């Protein structure tokens, strides 16, 4: 009965963006029962994107990034305590302090953490950072403010590139080491990655591609690194930006379909168990989830996107308090943004789900363009550089599975708007950085080869 769904006990594990927005939505949807939010960090929910931008630039401090509330959640916040497991049969979440929280419905929104440097001893050197938490941001900002001689950034994905951009804006020398052929190539493919490389070099970044970092050196404090091409980089700060790891280990014995790529759920955010059977009372939202999307061949998407965390949390919360026929699917087209080297990059759709691209408007030379991605003759993604106002148009093309390349007639049309070129999205395993949106399903016609 719908009335029952508005009452009872709901537990949310994960007290960041998705957890907070889910809690608010539950109350907006009329949930009057008890609500408990568990988070392993000791802070009220805070926003992470500013940590690699405003915070490093000194325009905001890491301890002021708490997310504003949309409404009072009337929740009990259990912060600074880790969830260690879930008992699906007894319907209990187990906490590190020995307590267990009974639930009628559970939302898992434990997100991701920064992938650590593989050698723990080297990773523990003073001056070696990852960037995911508020403490990471505060520590790195403090170190950058002390004006180090050189910063080494390992990995040229979005986070690594934004950190490098902030360093240059602060006037700091920075070296970026990336295993792939160019920055952002895993997320945006070949053409835009070349623009990203040019932007980095024009802004004075010492960009090294096609190399890996083989060792971090230092006796207590970081002093430099060895690269696979035999060169050495002397630096006093190192930021390891190798992508994210999904926080699923606590579910290892739960019987849920949780693995390194996240927790599988259906379009209604209901978690699958290890047998592929959908659960009725366990929901998933945010970076830790992987879910099927009809616009992308029903492949399981896993997104590390701010907007997805919000939208999926809202859908999950709605479905947690709504009877089956009134539940909604999570169908939002993925969108993300990055600000670096003075450019605003926005993406809609899934650029990695592509075989060809065209520059539909603007040009690489003008540093202002709309690039459209196609897969098997239909539009699947678009990326704008300083042209965000046109993104809604391309989103519409994606939503309606419009033919690729897009129709003629656009103003500021590129000279080569009809000439499609391979999207050149590489195999993620050759990169230092993750794509931030990954297709984790089976794609038999698109076996990728290591170049």
């Amino acid at each position: 009965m719908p009335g029952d769904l508005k009452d009872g006990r709901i537990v949310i594990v994960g007290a960041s963006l998705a957890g907070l927005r889910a809690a608010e939505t539950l109350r907006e949807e009329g949930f009057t029962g008890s609500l408990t939010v568990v988070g392993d960090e000791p802070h009220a929910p805070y926003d992470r994107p500013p940590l690699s931008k405003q915070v490093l630039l000194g325009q905001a401090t890491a301890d002021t990034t708490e997310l504003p509330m949309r409404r009072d959640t009337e929740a009990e916040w259990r912060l600074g305590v880790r969830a260690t497991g879930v008992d699906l049969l007894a319907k209990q979440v187990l906490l590190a302090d020995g307590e267990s929280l009974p639930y009628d419905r559970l939302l898992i929104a434990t997100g991701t953490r920064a992938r650590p440097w593989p050698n723990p001893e080297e990773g523990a050197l003073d001056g070696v950072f990852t960037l995911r938490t508020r403490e990471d941001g505060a520590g790195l900002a403090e170190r950058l403010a002390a004006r180090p001689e050189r910063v080494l950034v390992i990995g040229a994905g979005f986070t690594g590139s934004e950190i490098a951009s902030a360093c240059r804006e602060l006037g700091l020398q920075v070296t970026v080491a990336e295993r792939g052929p160019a920055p952002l190539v895993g997320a945006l493919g070949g053409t835009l990655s070349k623009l990203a490389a040019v932007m980095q070099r024009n802004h004075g970044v010492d960009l090294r591609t096609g190399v890996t970092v083989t060792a971090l050196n230092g006796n207590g404090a970081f002093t430099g690194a060895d690269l696979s091409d035999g060169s050495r980089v002397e630096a006093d700060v190192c930021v390891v930006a190798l992508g994210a790891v999904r926080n699923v280990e606590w579910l290892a014995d739960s019987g849920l379909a949780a693995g390194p790529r996240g927790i599988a759920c259906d379009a209604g955010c209901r978690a699958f168990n290890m047998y592929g059977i959908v659960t009725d009372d366990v929901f998933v939202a945010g970076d830790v989830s992987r879910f099927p999307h009809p616009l992308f061949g029903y492949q399981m998407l896993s997104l590390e996107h701010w907007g997805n965390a919000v939208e999926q949390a809202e859908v999950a919360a709605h479905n947690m308090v709504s009877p089956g026929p009134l539940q909604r699917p999570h169908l939002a087209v993925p969108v993300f943004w990055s600000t670096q080297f003075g450019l605003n990059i926005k993406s809609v759709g899934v650029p990695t789900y592509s075989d060809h691209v065209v520059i539909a408007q603007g040009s690489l030379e003008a540093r202002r363009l709309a690039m459209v991605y196609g897969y098997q003759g239909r539009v699947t993604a678009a990326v704008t550089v300083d042209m965000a106002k046109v993104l809604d148009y391309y989103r519409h093309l994606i939503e309606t599975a419009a033919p690729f390349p897009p129709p003629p007639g656009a103003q500021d049309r590129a000279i080569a708007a009809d000439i499609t070129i391979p999207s050149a999205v590489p195999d993620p395993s050759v990169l230092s950085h993750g794509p931030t949106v990954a297709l984790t399903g089976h794609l038999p016609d698109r076996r990728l080869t290591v170049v």
Partner: protein
Amino acid sequence: MDSATLLARITDYASRPNPYPLYAELREAGPVVQQADGSYLIGTYHHIAALLHDPRMSADPRTRGEVTHKPPFLRLDDPEHHRLRTLAMRPFGPPHSPGRVDGMRGEIDRITKELLEPFEAGRQIDIVDDFAYPLPVTVICRLLGVPREDEPLFRAWSDAIVAAADVRPDDDSTEPDKAGDQARMEMGGYLLNLAEQRRGKPGDDLLSAFVNEPDQALRLTQEELAETAVLLLIAGHETTVNLITNGVLTLLRQPEQLDLLRREPGLMPRAVEELLRYEPPVHMRERIPHADLDVAGTVIPQGTSVILVLASGSRDPRRFHEPDRFDPTRPDNQHLGFGSGIHLCYGAPLARLEAQAALGALLPHLGTARLVQDPPPYRQNAMLRGPRHLSVQL
């Protein structure tokens, strides 16, 4: 009635006091409604919003095939639009002059206060001539660097240019077009002359900034400077007057909302947004497709005039709950009052501050005020719609 006559009926002067039932009829007949003269009318929110973001929709009248002079950036397409708007923005807004408009708050408040000095209880005043017109004119003159006392001069030019730009489906537009061209030339020459006087002797006004730009690559040509300055001077004083006047009219018609604002003046920014939705100063914009365009199953041929009725979109019940209700507390108010997409109103922040200051300062005077004539007499223009006079007994 025949939906092919909708544009004629909307632009008919008799419809000026209340075009909204015609907009409802348009949305009902739509989304794409062809007119007797071959043009198309669109009045539904989602279709308008989509077309305002569609790069295939041209703002340039030359896309219709009419050979005219190169228009100002308001009616140009990218990349030329982007180049000129960016240059025009340099002395006015971010990223180069982020504090410019914010820095005008004190001056706007001072001008507002001066204008309100004669407003004593018992007096009858004309909101338009005594308040809503002089405020934005004084502000835009100050901003651009135009002598306030030249107002009668540029008012005549402005009237001619705005009349030429109005939509008139049936009437012959040769005469107004000729008069508009003449006025634009004269006004452009006048503004160029003012700019020249500041070459080497810059003040803190926009004309000074334009003419003294040291970087050749960032300098407007004489022609571009004239077109841009004409656009800013006209837009700066033909629209905000309607916003303020419509605000007073709306509040005096809805005493309970007036009371709410008097109790909670902090609601004023949202009230102004609601005003931009409910009684916007700009009702329509024209666009022309660069290619044949399928809009909701209707193919609009390349080069055809498409009138987007923004004021209808902002009253679309498919987008706004109880759209015909004026509600200053309305959530999620993504109105079309300033347009959307690349042509979103250049002067929007200034218009907002002026309207907030003007209506906020007027609030104490409106408690006992009443409208002398309702509906008031309107200006001829259907595109830039607003009262010609608004007599109020204080």
